[in-house]
């Protein structure tokens, strides 16, 4: 027989007491796991949905002057200004971290004039732009045909154009299908057309002025994605849109600290409750402990006995708490986020949960163990 055996026998044969201890650990572990997993899921999904809001990486030519600018990219007034080629744009989708890339939206910028007004004609892929500019509201419809255009709010006013009106640029007639609501940015001054139409019209086949990239970055540092893009397109500056990153990180941080603080509070409560119950248990076992001391058990042996009980309870409670907490989290996520993907049952979080729970059991046992170890053997003999 070993001290561990005695601890186990005590737990098994004083079922009521063990059950209460076990239940408290299970309860606090369940709550902690549930909260942590649900918040972690919320956090990931919030991170992802933020990524979907817009581009967080800008790929621009290395040099630029200050003519007409759009998102700090200059539209040069010469004929071979498209610095990138389609190949560059396709190569972004071949970086190692390509799974983190949501959308790649290349653009060609061309200064044009119409009715004595100078403005930029931006050739874009409307389907990609839609992904990247989720906040854009349009009066009318998104263009999809090669001769259809979308007008910025101000330029529509200056040109006095409405939906259904025609627009003649560089000898080609375009149909206005939509007008962008006021953005308060350069976007208000721009006319958007199909990228291939613009490339063909100005002899810029295969040329691209700059590229906006939206990357999911909850699982990787955005810096790494940016670095991998620069490796693929050496003559580009890859700009991380710090503002976007910061906001997203703030959101995540808030969620993360929320879940950690609450999980820790729950675990501390669990610790306090289990400690108190174990102290009560030790007080009821005074006689037994004194007998053990009088037959030669050292203080450390007595402390071991109590700590092992804490560890066993913590271990078993951790396993049960993890299983219940995870099942609860799965149900909760289903209820509050029906569209979300399923929660994964990974080994590593399970091992962590069980380790933390075992540690919780041992820590809860420390005060009771010290108390038990400090009992003097004489007390048991006094009343013989």
């Amino acid at each position: 027989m070993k001290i561990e055996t005695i601890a186990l026998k005590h737990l098994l044969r004083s079922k009521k007491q063990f059950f209460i201890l076990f239940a408290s650990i299970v309860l606090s572990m369940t709550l902690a796991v549930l909260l942590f997993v649900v918040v972690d899921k919320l956090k990931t999904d919030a991170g992802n949905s933020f990524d979907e809001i817009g581009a967080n990486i800008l790929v621009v030519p290395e040099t630029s002057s200050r003519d007409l600018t759009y998102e700090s990219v200059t539209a040069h007034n010469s004929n071979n200004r498209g610095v990138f080629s389609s190949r560059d744009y396709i190569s972004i989708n071949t970086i190692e971290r390509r799974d983190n890339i949501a959308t790649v939206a290349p653009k060609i910028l061309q200064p044009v004039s119409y009715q004595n007004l100078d403005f930029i004609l931006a050739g874009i892929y409307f389907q990609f732009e839609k992904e990247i500019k989720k906040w854009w509201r349009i009066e009318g419809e998104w263009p999809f045909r090669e001769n259809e255009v979308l007008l910025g709010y101000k330029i529509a006013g200056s040109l006095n154009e409405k939906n259904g009106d025609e627009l003649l640029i560089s000898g080609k007639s375009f149909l206005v299908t939509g007008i962008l609501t006021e953005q308060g940015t350069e976007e208000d001054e721009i006319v958007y057309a199909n990228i291939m139409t613009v490339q063909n019209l100005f002899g810029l086949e295969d040329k691209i002025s700059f590229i906006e990239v939206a990357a999911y970055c909850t699982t990787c540092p955005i810096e790494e994605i940016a670095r991998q893009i620069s490796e693929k397109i050496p003559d580009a500056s890859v700009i991380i849109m710090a503002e976007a990153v910061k906001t997203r990180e703030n959101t995540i941080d808030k969620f993360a600290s929320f879940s950690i603080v609450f999980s820790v509070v729950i675990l501390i409560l669990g610790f306090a409750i289990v400690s108190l119950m174990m102290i009560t248990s030790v007080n009821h076992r005074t006689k037994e402990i004194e007998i053990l001391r009088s037959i030669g058990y050292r203080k450390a042996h007595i402390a071991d006995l109590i700590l092992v009980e804490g560890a066993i309870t913590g271990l078993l409670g951790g396993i049960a708490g993890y299983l219940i907490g995870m099942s609860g989290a799965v149900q909760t996520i289903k209820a509050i986020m029906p569209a979300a993907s399923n929660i994964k049952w990974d080994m590593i979080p399970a091992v962590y949960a069980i380790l933390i729970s075992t540690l919780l059991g041992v820590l809860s046992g420390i005060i009771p163990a010290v108390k038990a170890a400090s009992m003097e053997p004489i007390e048991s003999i006094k009343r013989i």
Partner: protein
Amino acid sequence: MSLIKLLEIEKNYPDGLGEFKALKKVSVSIDSGEFIAITGPSGSGKSTLLTILGVLNPPSKGQIYIDDIDVYSLSGDRQADFRQTYIGFVFQDLHLVPYLTALENVLLPLAISLYPGKEQKKMAKEVLNRVGLGDKYHRLPGKLSGGEKSRVAIARAIVNKPRIILADEPTGSLDSGTGNEIMKLFQSLNNEGITVILVTHNNENKKYVKKNFLVRDGLIEVNQKWV
């Protein structure tokens, strides 16, 4: 050659504002292999003497040597080790651990020893057989009779092969038949050379012991015969 030597042992217990002198300058020596009954009126200091002998209750003054070791000068851990190797206690029935079976109670002193598990079990079963409980290894104390509990307590006291057995009124709550059985067990242990010291009120136990310590008013009178 004396196994135990008490030199001017005094024991004072706090008593209200002052002190109560439970033992007053007791000097006595006990040889290896003796079988001693400690008797005396209630409150005279018998249990106090026994617990001092058992390295459980430090005296207020004086020294006690067991096997030439000044036991109370040892550290707490070493005192525990000393109890484990030298001394077997027999408590009254309530002193079995309630959630452990007879066998497990007897295994308790071995759980902190270096004996491997199998050897431990063999030793525990041997002593249980010896005290006549060969068929009750797996009974919990709650399901044992008073006499059976005493036997388990004795088995637990001797499983470590101690040199000294201390017992405080081991037959106090038993009927005379069972009490005699228990005394015979002590006698046979004593015949093997173990020093047995027990507190008793029971005159029937006279015939088993070799020597009598009469404790009266905190002092000891050593008698070759029961008085």
